[in-house]
């Protein structure tokens, strides 16, 4: 029983901190919209989660010019995989 969390604001919000305070170790995190800055080495003050699986949305990365700065811990996925993640995890919690 795992949850997919989507995070759609960047590091200048406190969204990731809120999410991590109640996410479980085997949950997955998907960063979308301005959330993709979290997945870039060009992000300020972002503390990368230790345990969870980390995904980041390709379309949002390309829009923002982040394609060459994505951190290794993140898997870059497209919308089809976004949909698949929603079906794979029993629950989806959206953080916005």
């Amino acid at each position, binding site marked *: 029983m795992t949850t997919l969390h989507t995070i759609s604001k*960047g590091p200048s919000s406190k969204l990731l901190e809120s999410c991590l305070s109640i996410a479980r170790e085997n949950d997955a995190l998907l960063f979308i919209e301005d959330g993709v*800055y979290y997945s870039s080495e*060009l992000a300020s003050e972002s503390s990368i989660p230790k345990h969870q699986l980390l995904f980041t949305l390709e379309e*949002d990365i*390309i*829009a*923002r*010019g982040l394609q060459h700065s994505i951190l290794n811990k993140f898997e870059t996925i497209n919308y089809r995989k976004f949909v698949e993640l929603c079906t794979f995890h029993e629950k989806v919690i959206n953080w916005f």
Partner: protein
Amino acid sequence: MTKPKKMFTFISRQAPYGKDRARLCLDAALAATVFEQKVNYVFSDDGVYQLLKQQNGGSIGSKTLGSALEALDLYGIEDVFVNEASLRQRNLNSEHLLIKTIPVTNIQLANLILKSDYVINL
């Protein structure tokens, strides 16, 4: 004799695409050039992300803001500044940037604001 020019300073603090604020700030600055005023443009905080190379808004059905920033030069806005502390916090340097900008410290920014007649902060 013409009226003395007033100095406008636009501070663009938001990342592109997630919200429309970056675009609003640019459009307002371009409008100011029509009035033949002195116009400064400053990228600060998350606004420095607007300057990244290789943006392509098309992938999310949006116009590419990075390309639109080239209008600053076309419209004669030459004094384009970037907050160097904001760059540093994001591991960015001038090689990452799409257009030519003048790096400024917070103190220089404070002085620029002091000299400005109008400050639009978005």
